[in-house]
Each structure stands twice: as structure tokens, then as C-alpha cells.
């Protein structure tokens, strides 16, 4: 009887240890995924967005994006004409601002808007911030294929998201996340994010194409990198309300 109890205890310890190790591994994979996406010290990117509805109709947006580290990002619309100059600033501590030229005002984005679609795209304001999955999610390793890790991410307690969980596919060779599925509060697949054309630019892995598809709306936003400059030494002053209002 005593032997049996010891065996069960040992098995439990092993099982718990395995779960702990799996969780730990998943969190390391996620941290690596964040690190590889945000690896450049800074980035200046010219982007073209193509919005496609379920009827195949397309709308084009052009924008410029500046990013420094993993916490500061500024996005500025160049076209279409009715959105030209609309700018978005994401700062540490989840602080976000938007500049609307028509009102000549910089406005703080309240948290209730952060899960709204950004300027008609399939990306939310939250998605437009620099990606920090590890900081906001608990990760579990679901599966390991020959070339990919498959993780499940659940928002950490206290982190408010419009989705209930994410499923993320991460390349084993370079830790680049190639696919993310977003599940709504009913655990139904809602959005799909894919990174494509992942190539090395100098010492960094960069995806020159990304697409977010809203499965429910049958609407997608494809983002193509037209020009990228890395480690230019962008000043912190770019990521300020002062610069947000500037024309260029």
C-alpha cells in the first residue's frame, strides 16, 4: 500500500514537473518570438495595406511606420486623401494617442477603443501597437511539429482583450511567429494573422508581408512592406505628441 502511494506521488511529481517544464518552454518560445519580431533597435517602414471585402473589392492605404524597441511605435497615413495625416502613437504603459488633422487635435485613446478596428482595417488599435505577446499572455505548448511550435496563449489575469485565446505557430529555426489565430469569447475562430516572405535583412528576420483576415466578416487586410530601414538611430523625439502633429 505504502509502495503504491509512493509510486503515485512520484508520478504526480513527474507529471507536474513535465507541465511546469512545458509551460516554461512555451513562455521561453513566446519571449523569443517577441524578441525576434522586435529585434531591430529601430525600424522605419513604408507600408501598403490592401483591404479586401468578401466581394473582392479592394481599398488601398499607404502609411509610414516608425518603431523603436518593443514599446514605441508611430504610424502615419499617407493615403487615401481623406485619411492623410491621421497618425497613431503607441507608448510604454499602454498609452496611445491619435491625431486627426480635421480636428487639429491629439487625442488620448481610451482603453475601450483599443480593440476597435484601426481606420477600417482588420487590425485593432491594440494590434497596431508593438507586439508584446509574452508580457500579456500565459503560454502553453500544444504541439511540436518538425518545423513549428504551436502555442496557446491566454490573456493574463487583469489583461483585457476582445479575444479569449490565441493559437500561435512559431518557427523552430528562428522563432518567427508565422501564424496566429484569434478566438472570440465563445472560443470561435475570429481572426487569422499570417506573416509571409520572412527573410533576413542583415542580422534580423523580417516578414515583408502580413495579412489579418476577419473570418466572420470575410474581410482581410494585407500589409506589404515597400521599403524598410533598420537601426537608423531614430530619436525618441519621433515618438512624442509633438511629432504626432507634424506633417512629416
Amino acid at each position, binding site marked *: 500500500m505504502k509502495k503504491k502511494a509512493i509510486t503515485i506521488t512520484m508520478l504526480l511529481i513527474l507529471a507536474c514537473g513535465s507541465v511546469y517544464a512545458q509551460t516554461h518552454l512555451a513562455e521561453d518560445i513566446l519571449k523569443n518570438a517577441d524578441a525576434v519580431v522586435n529585434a531591430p533597435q529601430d525600424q522605419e517602414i513604408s507600408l501598403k495595406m490592401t*483591404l479586401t*471585402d468578401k466581394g473582392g473589392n479592394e*481599398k*488601398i492605404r499607404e502609411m509610414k511606420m516608425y518603431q523603436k524597441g518593443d514599446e514605441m511605435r508611430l504610424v502615419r497615413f499617407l493615403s*487615401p*486623401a*481623406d485619411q*492623410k495625416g491621421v497618425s497613431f502613437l503607441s507608448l510604454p*504603459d499602454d*498609452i496611445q494617442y491619435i491625431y486627426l488633422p480635421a*480636428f*487639429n*487635435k491629439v*487625442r*488620448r*485613446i*481610451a*482603453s*475601450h*477603443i483599443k480593440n*476597435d*478596428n484601426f481606420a*477600417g482595417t482588420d487590425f485593432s488599435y491594440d494590434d497596431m501597437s508593438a507586439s508584446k505577446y509574452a508580457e500579456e499572455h500565459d503560454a502553453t505548448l500544444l504541439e511540436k511539429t518538425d518545423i513549428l511550435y504551436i502555442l496557446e496563449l491566454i490573456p493574463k489575469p487583469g489583461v*483585457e482583450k*476582445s479575444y479569449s485565446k490565441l493559437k500561435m505557430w512559431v518557427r523552430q529555426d528562428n522563432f518567427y511567429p508565422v501564424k496566429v489565430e484569434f478566438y472570440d469569447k465563445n472560443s470561435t475562430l475570429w481572426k487569422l494573422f499570417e506573416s509571409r516572405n520572412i527573410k533576413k535583412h542583415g542580422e534580423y528576420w523580417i516578414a515583408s508581408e502580413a495579412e489579418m483576415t476577419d473570418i466572420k*466578416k470575410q*474581410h482581410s487586410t494585407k500589409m506589404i512592406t515597400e521599403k524598410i530601414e533598420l537601426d537608423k538611430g531614430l530619436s525618441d523625439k519621433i515618438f*512624442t*505628441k*509633438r511629432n504626432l502633429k*507634424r*506633417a*512629416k
Partner: protein
Amino acid sequence: MKKIILFISILVAIFSNSYAQADFSINGYLKTDNRMLIDDNSFTWNENQLGLKFEGSYSDNYHLFSEVRLRGFGFPEIYQAADLQSKDKVDKWQLEFREAYLDLYQFGLQDLDVRIGRQIITWGTADRLNPTSNICPEDLEDIFNFGEQSGVNSVLATYYLENFTFSGVYVPTFTPAVLPSGIFASALSEPMEFPEGMTLRKYWDKIILPEQKFTESSQAAFKIGTNLFDYDLSVSYYYGRDDLPLLNKVIINPVDTLGTVDASVEMIYPKMQIIGADFAGSLLDVGIWGEAALTIPNEVEMQTIVGDSITKSIALKNDPYCKFVIGGDYTFKNGIYLNTQFLHGFIHERGNDDLNDYLTLRIEKKFFNDELKIVPIGGAISVTDWDDYKNNYGFVANPEIIYCPYDNIELLFGAYIIDGKGSNMFSNLKGNDEIYFKVKVSF
């Protein structure tokens, strides 16, 4: 008209030529706005606009911007055959010079930006109703387009020091507000009352603008802004004049012994100081903002002259009074957006006894990837006497549908439904319910 076309052509030519040399752009829009009274289907608003925005910079150190509007507005004003020979009367148009300024970045100091020229400066955190925004005169031509302002020639200097922003503005000349026109001309003024038995035969009014000299027409303002505990905060000070005229002299001349009189009035723009403060941030998930403006007016004397008799009273006391607005917005899980504000003291109200309460509300929902936006509930409610609110209220309801079938194209269809009791801004406009159709094409 030829001069205008020549002027715009020269601007376009200059800027087009500059394309090759620097980062310049020309954008603009076409707008039409037509409104009709529901009661008698008469048209009340007929507007077509071509707006052109010129923008560019030769270097990172400066930037220039200008916006001009060529505008066909109103209806033919034909009273006699000769008027038909005047194109201005048959087809009214005007050129509006909205903004034209130069930005100098890091001007002399690394953290100093200066903007010089005709510009619209909007301060405050509230939505369109900003008691702390007093530098530019109100453009109240379209009474329901709250918050519209005209540009003024000015210098704006902004200095950035860590988490603080210091702004200073100087405006050398005085520009009065544009008042509502057409059927809404009486929106901001109470009807003139005469003693019983007195009948008005003729009426004149005279506006006395301040002299355009340093001591009379100058306005100055300062603002300090910062971020504290995740809230954007600022305090401001304005010295200048009210941009709406104040009645300070009434002359009544009896014409006969039956009580018929001629009346003339004079109006001035009183000097005033305004101390302002505002904030914006979030409370839980709700976006909140507020601003308050403590106005300290110069006392203005009122003269009433009836024949040889002169009576003096006070048109505007120098007692400080405070206008404020507090508001919030929230997006529900189902995508419905709610925006509401409580306002104490509208643009034209002066003095503690004259400030009324207003509540604005807007509920909207977007469909089809933002192509369609429906505003089933929008508008404002005014209460002038809370003790007897059933007989002293007014409202304008503004349901609206906005459809954007393609990029850069916006179609708006909506209505203004106005009602109320007692004497207040909205009840004075009762019976003028309108529907409107607007189109905007950006390029």
C-alpha cells in the same frame, strides 16, 4: 471671378513647380450641402465648396500649409432686372482663406517650435464645445456645426520640456465671430422687448469694432500642459475680447404721440480674461474629459436714451463666471459607440445668471467595415430652469446616416428636429425642422 481663378492657378503653378524641388502636396475636397425645411419644403441651405490644401517643406526644419475654399453659397438675390446683370447676385460665391502658416521647427532652441501666420488654434479636450478655446473667433454661420472656428493671423510658440509643453500665442488684430445666418439668424439673440404701447418703426444697429492697434486689438494666451497619473492636464490663460458683440447703448426716438418710435443700438466687443483648465484620460474603460473656463470680464455700462432722458445701467458685470464641460465616451462590446457631454454655459452666454445647462448625446454604430455609420440618436438638450424644466427646455435631435461607398467619398443624410418650451436657444428655432444631404469627395 477671373481674379480668383488666376489666384488659384498661380498657387497651383507655384506648388506644382515646387514638386520637383521638395516634398510638396496638393490635396483637397469637393463638398455639397443642401438642406430643406420639412414643414414647407423650402430650401434653406445651398452650398458647394472646392477646398484646396497646399502643404510642403524643403527641409525638416520647416513646413508650410495653406487651405483656401472657393464656395458657392446661398440663393440668387434678385430684386430688379438690373440684378440679373450681376453674376454675384445670380450665383453667389466667395473665397474663404482659412489657413496659411509657416511652421519653424527647433527654431533657435532644440525644443522650440513656432507657427506663424493665419491659423486655427483649438485648445481644450472636449468634443467641439471648448470653453477654453478662445483665441480664434467662432464661425457660427452653420449654428449646428458647433466648434467651427475661423483662422486668425498669429504667432504660436510651443516649447517642450520633458513632460511639459509650454505654449504662447500672440494675435495682433481682432476678428469678430461670424453669426448664424438665414432662418437661424435669431438663434443666439433674444428678441428686443419694448414697453407696452410702444411700436417700433425703424431700427438701426451699429457694431463698434476695437481699433486695430496694439493696446486695443491684441490678444495673448498661454498654456502649460503635462501628463500626470495617466491624465493629460493643462492650464491656460487668455487675455483678449469676447468675439460676440454686446449691446451697450440703445437710443429710442419717439416719432409721434401714439407711441411709435425709431430705435438704434450700439454693440461692442468687451475685453475679458479667461483662466482655463482641462483634463483627459480614462476611468476604467471609459474615456473621460473635462474643461473649465473662468471668465473675468471688464465691466460694460449700458446706456438707454429715450428722447432727452438717459438711463445708465450695467450691460455686463465684472463678476467672474465659470463655463465648464465634462464628458465621456465608450464603445460597447457590440460596437455601439456612445459619446455624451454636459455643458454649463454655451458660446454666447455671459454672466452667472445667463449660463444654461446643455447635454449632448451621440450614439453611433458602424457596419460593413466602416462603410456605413448610423447615428440613430444625436443632438443636444437645453434646460434653462431646472425648477420648471417642463416649460423651460429645448432640444435639437440630429439622426444621421453616413455612407462611404468608396475611399474618399462620403454621403451624409440626416435631419435636425427642433422643439422646446420657454425661451432658449433651441425653442427659439422651433418650427425649423430640416433634412439635409451632404456629399464630400476628398482628393
